[in-house]
């Protein structure tokens, strides 16, 4: 009898997982108009200071007048963070703290950490609203759940800066984000297809289905591969960001196919994928990556063929820069679209850091800051 309870439990878990995955598959973020816009933005010249992409903007169509928010320093800047649960957010959070130190006008910087829990973040924001913040910065844990909280904050009359993930309202003062997932996926796919001369078997390695920022990456890649009749996508597999799983998947595919290229939506598995070819005893084909340092190191050390699109951590700096501008009464774009630089064989040496851990994300806008990375990673 006990066994059947356990069996029932397993069935329940399996069904639940399936339901979650299937439910997330219907994704409201996938619209072709957005994709075309992002691809166009990849080609545009950004507005702003040269060499400082975190201060640049693309297509600043609608500028917001913030003169009514202008205030005497010192300011109290409040930040509701979704979490520092992964190394991308750890790097971002650190560069943000650095940017704060660059503005003496910021008297106080109050941060709450929601530990990826939307309900905690909602109450964090409510707390912050009682603390006389001059401005509120929000990096939402989820788009849907945080929308009402952002609306409520804006209704109190303080300026609100949203960055990274968005919200389903335009009540914010400015929304900061890099170009986006379509551009990320397209850069790798276009390079790979060209590198292969439009011919060959491609294996796509993805983290998970149903995550909006990852879903857009694959959607873009797929539509680009479709443009090349000679490119055959032999498989699209999920690795749950586990390098061991990714390597096992590639080894299994090598039993059945000749693989001429690998497209990934997460650079954390690229090195393991490359190694599968080495262990199998064949040449490593072109592989797409990310500004994940583990991949940049492997790419540099082994001379692989790769390109690495980025989802820059420097946007965390931009959030502070925008807050400062707003409290000075300077105008900001309603939608602050940041450039999304690409790491190629030509500029790889600028970004790969053999002395830093794998989990570091290179597009942090922090490479020139004296001693910053050494302090962050304790090396």
């Amino acid at each position, binding site marked *: 009898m006990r066994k059947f309870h*356990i*069996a029932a439990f397993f069935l329940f878990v*399996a069904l639940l997982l399936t339901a979650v995955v299937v439910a997330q598959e219907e994704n409201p973020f996938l619209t072709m108009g957005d994709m075309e816009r992002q691809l166009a933005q990849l080609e545009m010249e950004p507005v702003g200071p040269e060499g400082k992409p975190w201060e640049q903007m693309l297509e600043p169509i609608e500028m917001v007048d913030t003169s009514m928010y202008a205030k005497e320093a010192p300011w109290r800047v409040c930040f509701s963070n979704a979490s520092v649960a992964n190394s991308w957010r750890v790097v971002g959070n650190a560069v943000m703290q650095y940017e704060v130190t660059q503005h003496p006008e910021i008297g106080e910087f109050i941060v709450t950490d929601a530990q990826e829990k939307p309900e905690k973040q909602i109450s964090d924001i409510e707390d912050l609203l009682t603390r006389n913040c001059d401005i509120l910065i929000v990096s939402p844990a989820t788009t849907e759940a945080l929308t009402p909280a952002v609306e409520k904050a804006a209704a109190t009359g303080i300026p609100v800066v949203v960055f990274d993930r968005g919200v389903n309202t335009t009540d914010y003062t400015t929304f900061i984000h890099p170009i986006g997932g379509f551009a990320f996926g397209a850069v790798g796919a276009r390079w790979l297809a060209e590198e292969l001369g439009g011919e060959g078997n491609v294996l796509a390695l993805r983290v998970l289905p149903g995550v909006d920022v990852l879903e857009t990456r694959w959607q873009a890649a797929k539509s680009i591969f479709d443009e090349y009749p000679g490119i055959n996508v032999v498989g699209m597999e999920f690795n749950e960001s586990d390098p061991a799983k*990714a390597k096992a998947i590639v*080894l299994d595919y090598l*039993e059945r196919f000749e693989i001429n290229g690998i497209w990934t939506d997460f650079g954390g598995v690229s090195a393991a994928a490359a190694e599968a070819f080495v262990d199998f005893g064949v040449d490593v084909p072109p592989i797409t990556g990310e500004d994940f340092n583990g991949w940049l190191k492997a790419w540099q050390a082994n001379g692989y063929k790769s390109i690495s699109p980025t989802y820059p951590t420097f946007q965390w700096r931009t959030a502070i820069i925008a807050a400062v501008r707003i409290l000075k009464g300077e105008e900001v774009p309603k939608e602050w679209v940041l450039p999304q630089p690409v790491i190629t064989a030509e500029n790889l040496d600028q970004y790969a850091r053999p002395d830093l*851990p794998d989990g570091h994300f290179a597009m942090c806008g922090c490479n020139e800051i004296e001693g910053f990375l050494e302090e962050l*990673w304790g090396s």
Partner: protein
Amino acid sequence: MESTFSTTQTPIGQRLRRLLSKVPVILIVLLVVLILIALVAPTFYRPVALLNFLKRAAPIIVVAIGQMYVMLSGEFDLSVGSLITVCAAVAANVINNNPDNLALAFVWVFGIAIVVGLINGLIVTRLNVPSFVTTLGMLLVLQGAISIYTRGAPQGGITDNFRVFGRGNIEGTEIPYAFVIMLLVIAIGVYLMHFTTFGRRVYAVGGNPVAARLSGVNVGRIKTTAFVLSAVLAAVGAVLIAGFSGVSSLSVGQGYEFQSISAIVLGGVALGGGRGNIAGAVMGALTLQAMFSLLNFLGFPLPIRLSVQGLIIIGAVAIAARRGRT
């Protein structure tokens, strides 16, 4: 299945049925999966490919054997996954890209494992906290500790002389070290189980703890030893996995608690203890790994995979349970 047999009770049918009922369910499941693989990917059966498959299966087999000791003694160990992550991260940090630190790394990795196993065992047996709660708590403690310790990304890096155990082959051959380590663990496991008093007592403790205590068995010590064994084998698993994938990340051990429990339940180890053996645990783990490859070969989407895996596990356990009753 059974009803069709019972309606055609020819002597041959009866004999076949009796014969079949002696074959463990897991062996049939494993054979079916292996045959399906042969149909989809015939090259899988080249000796090199097979050895490479066993190399990949080695970590889950080793971890499952450890989990089996705990489960035979009537407990669970949900902390193995986080412990693997901790061991891999500590190894990367201690080695720090310097091959000379290999021995020191092993001391740290196995030292931590022994301490974690001891704590698990002592909390369960001395403080009488159910192992489900104790090891779930340990899972969270280790997860938190490693996030703080690594600041979100493992530091340092492992060198080739550490990776060879999970990745390399014995010089001049196609035989992976991981395969040899796996055989060693199986051999030691079988020896402990069937040729020592410890092995008999594990069964006794899980089967009937009261009777075991009355006949003078130190239940606490047996269970604690089982937890330490599980933790040490998780550390061996960590060495194999980290070596295999090479990248230090905080997701290396993810899911190993669930996978190891699935493997041994598939292999006929009774939840609650007292029943099961190493052959079952090994076949269960092999089946999970073979299913992973089969689903790769078939290219099923992830949601279908999860359901298929879940259904196979439930099905195999249900059939075994049904047999157990009749």
